[in-house]
């Protein structure tokens, strides 16, 4: 077993239940020691893909390769992957230590070596003091860490995690996210994580694959997905976004301009679409600024504050504009140029590169 973890590849993976397609033609590569997250709304096929990788669900089509070897037909008990199930699946009739020892007992490891490994695994997740308790006597976060220790104790080269943090409260979740990330750095194994929490996906992963209706919509590094979403769904699911719709009016080197009503918005793009076609731009709320008198920007629109809320670190404003409807704008509180007030007229400005052209996949969604 390599210490660096396995490389995993999915080739055209599909899973159908009768006439319903749960996973449709998904191809993915996970490099050695990489942390990949499958992100998507409920029912998008994340668990199904993970279960195919683990071997509990037989794909209708496609292949799963481990270090280039086809393992599609291999039964789960011969794959040697560590797995943390949605809801942990700890054995309720065993103590914490017995749970963690289970994979070692299965491998007929000697008692002394087994005990040493169990202790090391429990130390790793800081649960050594709870070794003799039953899972039912632990909090959700502690149970999650037992599940993690149990998945790690036999040093699997690939670790599969199905929403490992979903049952935890926000603070504990953040804590365990950090722990999980540190663990990944420390042991250098390949992790495949499933979540529908976009913050978790952004903060933990080397790479994120976004799924919707069983299809892979886009994959890439977190920053790449956030800064350059390919479709409306991705922009909307990963963080918040405003959408500006208009007609392409002018194309120039490295960008184009759209018009909607009396407003013109420029954007950066490698290949501008045809003049006169419809285009959709995604614009993150934090990428706009309130412009002072006489200040200019590559893009500006006039608007009126229709509503606002205080969020501690920032203000969230809803700015009513004549041509793009309501735009959501966030400002850091500490250097907000104004005190927000309903009915206040403001001028918003942003750089061309901040408004990103995206494919409008909502119509396809409705058709699906």
């Amino acid at each position, binding site marked *: 077993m390599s210490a660096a973890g396995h490389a995993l590849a999915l080739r055209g993976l599909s899973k159908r239940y009768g006439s319903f397609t749960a996973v449709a033609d998904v191809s993915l590569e996970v490099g050695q020691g990489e942390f990949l997250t499958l992100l998507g709304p409920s029912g998008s096929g994340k668990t199904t893909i993970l279960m195919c990788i683990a071997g509990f669900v037989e794909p209708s089509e496609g292949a799963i390769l481990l270090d280039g070897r086809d393992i599609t037909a291999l039964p789960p*008990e011969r794959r040697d992957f560590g797995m943390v199930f949605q809801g942990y*699946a700890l*054995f309720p009739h065993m103590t914490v230590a017995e749970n963690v020892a*289970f*994979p070692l*007992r*299965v491998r007929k490891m000697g008692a002394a070596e087994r005990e040493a490994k169990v202790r090391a695994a429990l130390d790793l997740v800081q649960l050594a003091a709870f070794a003799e308790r039953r899972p039912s006597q632990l909090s959700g976060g502690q149970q999650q860490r037992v599940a993690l220790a*149990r998945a790690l104790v036999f040093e699997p080269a690939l670790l599969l995690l199905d929403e490992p943090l979903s049952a935890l409260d926000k603070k504990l979740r953040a804590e365990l996210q950090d722990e999980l990330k540190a663990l990944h750095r420390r042991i250098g194994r390949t992790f495949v994580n499933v979540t529908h929490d976009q913050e978790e996906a952004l903060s933990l992963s080397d790479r994120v694959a976004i799924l919707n209706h069983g299809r892979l919509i886009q994959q890439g590094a977190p920053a790449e997905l956030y800064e350059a979403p390919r479709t409306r769904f991705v922009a909307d699911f990963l963080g918040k976004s405003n959408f500006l719709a208009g007609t392409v009016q002018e194309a120039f080197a490295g960008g184009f301009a759209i018009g909607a009503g009396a407003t013109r918005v420029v954007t950066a793009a490698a290949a501008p679409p045809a003049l006169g076609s419809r285009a959709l731009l995604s614009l993150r709320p934090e990428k706009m600024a309130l412009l002072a008198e006489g200040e200019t920007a590559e893009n500006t629109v006039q608007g009126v504050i229709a509503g606002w809320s205080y969020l501690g670190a920032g203000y969230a404003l809803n700015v009513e504009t004549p041509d793009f409807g309501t735009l959501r704008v966030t400002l850091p509180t500490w250097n907000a140029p104004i005190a927000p007030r309903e009915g206040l007229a403001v001028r918003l400005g942003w750089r061309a590169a901040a408004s990103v052209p995206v494919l409008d996949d909502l119509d396809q969604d409705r058709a699906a």
Partner: protein
Amino acid sequence: MMAHRPGWFARISAGVVALYLLLPISIIIPVSMTDQRFLSLPKQGLSLQHYVTVLFSPEWLGSIWQSFLIALAATGLAVVSGTLCAIGCWRLARRSTDLLRALMLLPIIIPSIVYAIGAYRYFAGLDLLDRFLGVALAHGVTGIPYVVITVSTALAAFDPRLEQAARGMGASLSQTLRWVILPRIMPGILSGGIFAFIHSWDELVIVLFIASRDVFTLPRRIWDGINENLDPAMAAVAVLLVVFTTGLLLLDLALRRRRAE
């Protein structure tokens, strides 16, 4: 939510039913302590002489011992095959296994006299009449439904992800069975075992058909005693039987309570 309190009609009918169930059982208690030499209520005073007779009579003790061994063997057979059948049906979970499970309940649906006639015909050819093995087999097979029912119920509450977790960690089928599935459904197995034991312990109809002299179980001896000599020792035996069976049921109750916790 306020619980509905039962009205007077429900209370009275419940009392009548309970009385109806308990009276025949409770009448044997004074009868077993009669000072007379035939089956009757006590006249001058209470006496434990018939208990002494039973506990020192080689016939009664022999029958008790034989019944106990047969019930033990039958329980073993019923528990092993009933548990395996229930687990197999649960794992495959097809329409055909639902049918199979229904089929396994036949022994308690078919009148035992019908079953006894069939067993008599078959066992004659196999030289199993009036044999310990024959009676244990017949009781074991008719005890299977109790185990199938209780184990299937326990399995319905078993989280299938535990099995997946075990296999994902590399456990073979037999390791998963021994270390994960069986410990989780053990209360159901024990419960089924207790019922299978009681079933064999007081079974009479089949025994009347397939056993005659060598195999003489306790219910059979009581039956013969009633027909032949009205010995009050029978009432004493009956009381012992009731006490023993009640003990087993209380054990089952205790096991269920522990599982519920």
